[in-house]
């Protein structure tokens, strides 16, 4: 059916309905029979009119600011977005690893380098929040700060998902729903080759829905102890289980859970 086959008023009504979001299923089907380019143009004009109307009704420029947790997640997303844009063809950055067992000389050199990086980042990204995943220096301190200050702290111990794995002490996980921040302390997790596979965290929150929340992809380059910040892609409410899977580089949207080294149950 061409646009000419529809009455002009009907055509405009459908575009207005599209912009208002009130089309019925039958009307959605009706739209599919219209020349898409004509309809898209009219729909966009209608959407623009609706947008301008909203801003006009808003008038006073509004009086709300973003909740702090959401603002922090957006800033974290922004860092990730820019990193993905800039490093589209480069290897993923390694996990944030704390120096747990190194010589004094190594530690001093590491701290000097870390301080330089921190200073550079402070100048370059003055608005970067504590969840920005490029700051490698203060991760353990950030974790300790969260543990000390969070009033709603969720804590759990990592345990092997397989009974064949007998190593007991695997570290812990802490999470605060109020700040939407959390950290994994991981011990004995095998070093991975980021070009072949990466670890991915999943957060189970049944209060939200039955789909695990992606908690971020990370690497391990030190089997002794690594502290990794959680990068939840969606808001977490009441987590009941955290799980780490091994996935292809970059992670997956849905895990088949074939390789599930660690889980942490929340009591």
């Amino acid at each position, binding site marked *: 059916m061409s646009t000419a086959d529809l009455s002009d008023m009907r055509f*405009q*009504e459908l575009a*207005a*309905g599209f*912009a*208002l*979001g*009130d089309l019925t299923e039958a009307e959605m089907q009706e739209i599919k029979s219209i020349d898409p380019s004509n309809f898209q143009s009219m729909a*966009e*004009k*209608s*959407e*623009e*009119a*609706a*947008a*301008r*109307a*909203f*801003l*006009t*009704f*808003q*008038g006073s*420029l*509004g*009086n*709300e*600011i*973003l*909740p702090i*947790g*959401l*603002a922090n*997640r*957006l*800033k974290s*997303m*922004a860092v990730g*977005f*820019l990193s993905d*844009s*800039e490093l589209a063809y480069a290897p993923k950055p390694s996990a944030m690893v704390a120096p747990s067992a190194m010589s004094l000389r190594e530690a001093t050199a590491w701290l000097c380098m870390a301080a330089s990086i921190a200073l550079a980042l402070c100048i*370059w*990204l*003055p*608005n970067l929040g504590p969840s920005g995943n490029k700051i490698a220096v203060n991760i353990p301190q950030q974790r300790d700060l969260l543990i000390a200050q969070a009033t709603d702290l969720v804590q759990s111990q990592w345990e092997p998902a397989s009974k064949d794995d007998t190593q007991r002490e695997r570290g812990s996980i802490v999470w605060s729903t109020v700040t939407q921040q959390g950290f994994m302390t991981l011990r004995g997790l095998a070093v991975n080759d980021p070009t072949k596979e990466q670890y991915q965290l999943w957060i189970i929150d049944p209060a*939200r829905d039955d789909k695990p929340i992606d908690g971020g992809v990370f690497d391990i380059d030190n089997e002794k102890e690594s502290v990794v910040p959680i990068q939840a*892609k*969606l*808001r977490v*409410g009441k987590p009941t289980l955290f799980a780490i899977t091994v996935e292809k580089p970059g992670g997956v949207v849905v895990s088949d859970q074939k390789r599930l080294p660690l889980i942490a149950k929340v009591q």
Partner: protein
Amino acid sequence: MSTMLEVALPRIQAAESALARVALREPDSLNLCIERYGSLVWCLAKRYSPSQADAEDAVQEIFLELWQKADRFDASLSAESTFVTMIARRRLIDRFRKQARSMETTAEYDFDGQSASVSVDAAELIDEAAKATRCLDGLQANHKDVLRRSIHEGQSHSQISDELKIPLGSVKSLARRGLIQLRECMERFSLSRAGAPS
């Protein structure tokens, strides 16, 4: 209006396109985008979402889409805030449709946001708002009221029907006819402006 212009004047000179900078992937551009439009997007998301958690998810999706589509913004066609609002409304309507057709937004919202002024560029708003205000003022009162409830308050047609005690079909018709008249009026403004001698 003169007060608004006086307030806006210092910002006209300071105005810069956040989206243009995002399109260039400038390091601080995304934070600028969040600071400038976070409140606007949040206001929209609250009105069109059934819960705070849902609204927060929507805001994340909207900003991701804004950053991805930043290069499509054309300052000669619309104000940046209009572009942001268009993207946000489209995403919210899509989410609403997907989640549940029967879901009703609720007026008893319990948000923990704190009060502060929105930092949307006022200069842009004044120019477009002046036109939109004249067009909205030209609508019949019932058209304008239904549009305000639907577009600004995020009320469903059922809610509007209940509150105004008019049939659902009439609400739909009033909203659509009102929006058509609004669009036509704005197009006339654009045409008259384009044809006007400088």
